[in-house]
């Protein structure tokens, strides 16, 4: 959906959004709907559906190259490098219109109410400055806007509205796991998925179970931001400029943001002024940009008087466990990562030896190359005489479980700027430091044992595990945390920077704690809530 020339070109927008991913798209649509003139700058481009790997015989090889979730592997022009040598987990992301929702599996769980009260309930982390009940209407709005499939009635969570489309098929693989969980008396439920199972929205087809959502969905079944919010936002006049990479945010003498300096598609440095600047660059890109925006007023980076920009980085402690089954399971048919889950071990129970909890997310297999190279586990099938026997045991006969634990904020886990590494525009690249806490380690050990027990109960004849799983840093959270106290946070409960009153952050950076679920549901709900605050307070053309 390239710019057809019909969108207006705003020289003096009411708001400037940086980043066209899950949160930038949502906030852009919501503000445009309220009559705001919006410009969005995105360093990537539109992904062309017909060019996506799923149509081509070499589709599995693309996962190892230009569709790898690791920007250091892809090294595409839109990407920036990330120094992750000192991190347990590899940060993963995608740079395009739609952002990381382009390679997203679409697992779409909500936070539990207890996730907003971590300090009060369990004495760790911090409480959020808002509750589940305050966010719930925005969860509902977002589910309706993007199209979600699933089934209400899950006893592990508060009641919720009927899901916009029915659950996706879980197949023989899902039915096998369901029997395992039932046998143990453990919870499971069919996942809420950001994948439509029936006609919904415009120019989108229901899922045809092709499998590799992580390689982009060419039929618009998966609710990535480029096929949900963006078409609506463009129709409302939002001006989206692709291949535009922001170098820094400029401030004026009164300490408010003046706009940004960015490189246009021809590499020319340009200024875009705006009375309101909204960051939507993910939990690594946002602190990177703030730390790169130094000035006389903000020598340590913009909005960083607390010193907390880039601190408290959270992924999710993550391990992969796979069971090998005696029969074929149609393992590669259906969305790879959004099937069913168990929250049996989600809420805190200190008898388990750790605080907070984890979820178990069932994951399918992909094709033969993926299986041979070790699949979800990253443990290749052995070469040599045993090769064919082991390959046949595994191919189409495996079920994987992702053990996803809650990460807690620690200031030693951080995003800073690398003194040498830079992107193709010579903008300093992020350096990530992260180490797994002892609590997380104990949680993962427990989770791996639980996953193995569930797989065996379901009939697995062999169980393999990789713990922790290094390439699992899909969720980039906490690096511009929100709270009421300006000394202990970067933004307030409305995502507004304490130090810069016309600067908002709407991506995962503002998370206070990580919960133990995939975050996009909550990222988008928060973005919509912040947009409504901006609307209500007419942050349009005035600084405060």
């Amino acid at each position, binding site marked *: 959906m390239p710019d057809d020339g019909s969108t207006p070109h705003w020289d003096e927008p009411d708001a400037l959004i940086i980043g066209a991913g899950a949160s930038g798209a949502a906030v852009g649509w919501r503000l445009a709907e309220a009559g705001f003139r919006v410009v969005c700058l995105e360093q990537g481009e539109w992904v062309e559906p017909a060019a996506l790997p799923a149509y*081509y015989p070499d589709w599995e090889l693309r996962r190892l190259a230009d569709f790898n979730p690791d920007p250091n592997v892809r090294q595409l022009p839109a990407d920036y490098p990330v120094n992750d040598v000192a991190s347990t987990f590899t940060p993963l992301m995608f740079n395009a219109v739609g952002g990381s929702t382009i390679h997203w599996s679409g697992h779409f769980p909500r936070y539990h109410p207890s996730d907003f009260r971590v300090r009060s309930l369990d004495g760790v982390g911090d409480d959020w400055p808002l509750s589940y009940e305050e966010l719930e209407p925005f969860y509902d709005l977002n589910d309706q806007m993007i199209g979600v499939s699933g089934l209400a009635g899950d*006893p592990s969570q508060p009641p919720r509205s009927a899901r916009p489309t029915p659950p996706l098929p879980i197949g023989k693989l899902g*039915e096998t796991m369901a029997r395992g969980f039932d046998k143990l008396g453990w919870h*499971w439920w069919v996942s809420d998925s950001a994948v439509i199972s029936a006609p919904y929205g415009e120019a989108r087809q229901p899922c045809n179970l092709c*499998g590799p959502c992580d390689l982009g969905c060419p039929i618009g079944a998966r609710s990535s931001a480029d096929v949900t919010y963006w078409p609506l936002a463009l129709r409302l006049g939002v001006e989206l400029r692709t291949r535009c990479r922001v170098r820094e945010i400029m401030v004026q003498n009164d300490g408010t943001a003046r706009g940004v300096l960015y490189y246009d598609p021809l590499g020319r440095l340009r200024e875009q002024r705006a009375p309101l600047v909204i960051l939507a660059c993910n939990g690594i890109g946002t602190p990177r940009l703030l730390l790169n925006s130094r000035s006389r007023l903000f020598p340590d980076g913009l909005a960083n008087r607390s010193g907390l920009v880039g601190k408290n980085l959270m992924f999710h402690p993550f391990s992969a466990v796979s069971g090998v089954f005696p029969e074929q399971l149609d393992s590669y048919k*259906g969305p790879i990562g959004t099937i069913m889950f168990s929250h049996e071990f989600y809420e805190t129970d200190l008898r388990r030896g750790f605080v907070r909890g984890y979820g178990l997310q069932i994951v399918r297999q992909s094709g033969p*190359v993926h299986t041979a190279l070790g699949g979800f586990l990253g443990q290749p099938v052995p070469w040599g005489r045993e090769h064919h026997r082991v390959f046949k045991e595994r191919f189409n006969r495996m079920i994987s479980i992702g053990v996803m634990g809650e990460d807690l904020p620690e200031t030693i886990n951080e995003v800073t700027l690398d003194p040498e590494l830079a992107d193709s525009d010579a903008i300093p690249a992020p350096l990530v430091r992260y180490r797994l806490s002892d609590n997380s380690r104990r949680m993962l050990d427990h989770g791996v044992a639980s996953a193995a027990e569930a797989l065996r109960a379901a009939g697995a004849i062999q169980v393999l595990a990789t713990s922790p799983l290094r390439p699992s840093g899909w969720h980039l959270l906490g690096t511009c945390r929100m709270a009421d106290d300006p000394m202990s946070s970067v933004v307030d409960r409305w995502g507004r920077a304490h130090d810069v009153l016309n600067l908002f952050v709407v991506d995962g950076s503002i998370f206070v704690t990580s919960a133990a679920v995939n975050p996009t549901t909550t990222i988008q709900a928060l973005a919509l809530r912040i947009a409504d605050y901006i609307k209500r307070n007419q942050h349009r053309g005035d600084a405060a």
Partner: protein
Amino acid sequence: MSAPAMLDGEQRALLTAVLERIVPRSPDMPGAGDLGVTASIERALATASPLRRLFLDGLVEIELASARQNERGFRDLGPDEQDAVLRAVEEAQPTFFSALVDHTYRGYYTDPRVHEAIGFESRPPQPLGHQLPPFDPELLARQRQRAPFWRETS
């Protein structure tokens, strides 16, 4: 623009013999050497010079290890001796060896003849997609009996 030949005749014959041990022929499966995976690896080497260097050096290591263990060239060895040489190289040159295995699997498992042999329909995921029976809500019968167990906070 066709890629220049990345390997000379000797190197190509050596790589083919090595691939035949990485994924050997079996009664119902072709070997990676016989199948022509060598050509797909050569194409990969043409696009990435660090990988090319890794492979060219690695092939030399295989011949050196073969000479050390057996005082003969790799291609003159029996299968067991060849496997022993490769295990020694795997130990001594893990970066090369894992790239070798990785690229062998990439070439082997994208070949339609292999797909047929493993019972995988050889076509891209789209546009046909796949079929699965619809979700049966009865599967959740036991779960529905469970009382809500999330923590109330208000």
